[in-house]
């Protein structure tokens, strides 16, 4: 260091000189991030080659060689010979063009498709409103109840001049959104009670809550869905029966409740003990203490993991395929059962996957942003 200062001529002007091109700017960035050594350079070149190959291959398959629509014969059978001639060198997006209404809305009456479409928009609006911090208070509860009631009216119909649509004909994206959202809305209060119960001093309540959470978390969701589909009819008195969707909804709610309870318990544990003691010192009763002091703070702490759990459920609702409920994935799988469309599974799964990806990616980005924001005070 001393040599440098000794040999540097005295600066005549006080203007700061810019750093050499090799230390700042794009060239420097390339050198540090892509070509910092022979190993790094080799990896960059190899990966770059593979990426270019993959992208060119994908563009060829998805756009250049792709077929976007096929003629339909007068009998209503699609002529897919052009697609079959491609032999996998190009995507047959015609299956999506032809079947997208079926995949999105299932067997819902065709001329009434605007109703499930509005339902999907309502759900998206509900998510957006719930994600805004200015609505994080009691007003959220009437908003949820109101929206979910509207959704019920739109789907069933039968009043306000809307024709009645039985539940067996619902399908596609609305089912996925209904299972995930209603599941969360019902499981959330349950999970708060269970989490409180698990931290309670009363031994019987604690044991019940621990048993519930650990039993549910120890078995796969499929076994609960099977239980809902084959065992539930045995549980109820003779002659009384509830439909399949509701049974699956109950299974998903019970499942979600156990996982959410653990998330909420994490928030309850993270709260400093002084908050509990201070609330008790104020002479508040248990429910006053919990409702006014503990839960508002604890729930705020666990919002990011709650969103992550919700993403998990959103994906897990696809499991209802196994018990034959017509959600988005089942609709996609059914769309290619038709003989003329057999063998175009990849295109359909890419389309369905993109829908899931949009929802989950938005939620996960939101949760990451929220986490950074909520942790800002810790980092200084």
């Amino acid at each position, binding site marked *: 260091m001393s040599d440098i200062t000794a040999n540097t001529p005295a600066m005549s002007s006080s203007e700061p000189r810019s750093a050499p091109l090799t230390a700042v700017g794009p060239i420097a960035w390339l050198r540090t991030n892509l070509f910092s050594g022979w190993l790094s350079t080799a990896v960059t070149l190899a990966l770059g080659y593979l*990426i270019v190959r993959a992208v060119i291959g994908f563009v060829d398959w998805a756009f250049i060689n792709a077929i976007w629509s096929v003629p339909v014969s007068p009998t209503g059978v699609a002529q897919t010979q052009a697609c079959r001639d491609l032999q996998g060198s190009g995507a047959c997006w015609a299956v999506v063009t032809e079947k997208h209404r079926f995949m999105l809305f299932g067997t819902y009456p065709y001329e009434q498709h605007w109703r499930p479409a509005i339902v999907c928009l309502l759900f998206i609006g509900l998510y957006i409103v719930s994600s805004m911090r200015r609505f994080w208070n009691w007003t959220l509860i009437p908003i949820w109840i109101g929206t979910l009631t509207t959704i019920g009216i739109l789907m069933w119909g039968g009043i306000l001049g809307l024709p009645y649509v039985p539940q067996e004909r619902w399908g596609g994206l609305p089912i996925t959104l209904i299972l995930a959202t209603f599941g969360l809305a019902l499981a959330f209060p349950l999970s708060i009670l269970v989490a409180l119960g698990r931290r309670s001093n009363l031994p019987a309540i604690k044991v019940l809550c621990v048993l519930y959470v650990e039993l549910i978390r120890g078995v796969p969701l499929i*076994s609960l869905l099977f239980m809902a589909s084959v065992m539930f009819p045995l549980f109820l008195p003779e002659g009384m029966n509830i439909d399949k969707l509701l049974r699956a909804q109950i299974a998903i709610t019970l499942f979600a409740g156990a996982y959410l309870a653990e998330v909420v318990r994490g928030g309850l544990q993270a709260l400093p003990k002084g908050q509990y003691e201070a609330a008790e010192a104020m002479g508040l009763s248990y429910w006053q203490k919990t409702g006014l002091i503990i839960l508002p703070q604890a729930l705020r702490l666990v919002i990011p993991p709650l969103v992550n759990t919700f993403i998990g459920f959103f994906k897990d609702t696809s499991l209802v*395929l196994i018990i034959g409920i017509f959600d988005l994935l089942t609709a996609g799988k059914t769309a290619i059962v038709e003989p003329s469309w057999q063998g175009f599974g990849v295109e359909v*799964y890419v389309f369905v996957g993109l829908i899931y990806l949009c929802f989950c990616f938005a939620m996960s980005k939101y949760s990451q942003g929220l986490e950074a924001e909520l942790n800002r005070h810790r980092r200084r």
Partner: protein
Amino acid sequence: MSDATVDPRFRRKPPKRPIRLSWADERIRGIVWQVLVVGIIGSIIWWLWSNTVHNLEVRRIATGFGFLNREAGLPIAESLISYEPTDTYFRALLVGVLNTLKVAVVGIVLATFLGTAIGIARLSKNFLVAKIAGFYVEVIRDLPLLLQLLFWYTIMQGLPGPRQALKPVEGVFLSNRGFKVPALVWEPAHTAALIACIAGIVLTWLYARSARAKQMADGQPRKVWPAAVALILGLPVLTWQVMGAPWEIDWPALRGFNFRGGMSISPEYAALLIGLVTYTAGFIAEVVRAGILSVNLGQWEAAQALGLRHGQVLRLIVLPQALRVIIPPMTSNYLNLTKNSSLAVAIGYQDIVSIANTTLNQTGQAIEGIAIIMLVYLTISLSISLFMNWYNAKIALVER
């Protein structure tokens, strides 16, 4: 904690109050609440139970596990133990459990390696490597596993038939009947070599322990790796040589319409394994990344200041600290992989859920079938979490 150090005032118990029969007494309130909750839940369960018993009587469904000894009559495509459709339901279910374990164990090992590699790649200084790993994690975690399994299964079915099978490497065939890879003709010498290898690992572990004890005593580090190489590699090779060094490879070959010889991997198993491994690896990558990031930069610098080499820093300083953060979420990922293997039923791999489901459809005994599924998964889950808790307790921070 001898008596002298504790202030006697703290050891004094609060005065006992007699229970008053009043709502103002906290203990009375607690008892009332508990009796109420247990009563409500108990009566709901009793109601469901009595309904079930009544329904079973009305529908003339037999109860009990007597059906396990009856002939199953259900064909199973792949099994680790010998199985015929004429065997009992018990044996069929056992095959299912083994199939579940087969995919879970292999999946856990592969997902750990792939996930660790991707997690480290996400922290790479190379921009391209880090971004590709990040992209992979984002996409794979945002798609439902079932969708991915169906996707992989579709790809498997889209492979050409046996006659036009793809041959990426000599002796490996990829077709819509599954994968064919060369297999070693198993001889007693190989079993002996395997046992020798396990013995070598145990001996190496004992040797490393005694070397560490000696280092603790006199401060001299001792080299473990020459002994490790000799015991783990040398011993099996020697055993194998002594027993005649049999080395016969069974190459798969196309005969007629299908393959003969070699080891085959069914398309269902391959699709399930690829799906589970790639999906779980995305989650494990995040766990590993968080674990490595949790180690303070000062720990790296301090270790380098002590003159340790890069590998030593990783092995002695960083890894032990990162593992403490990694192990608990890793456990839940292993559990998730095992539970997710139940999705096999959607693509026709015959795991325990699939076989139990067929069983309950054939016998009509739904309750027993689902009880078996739950029991198997609870046992597996509890075993994994017990083992991981033991391992976690072993590496946890020892505080005074």
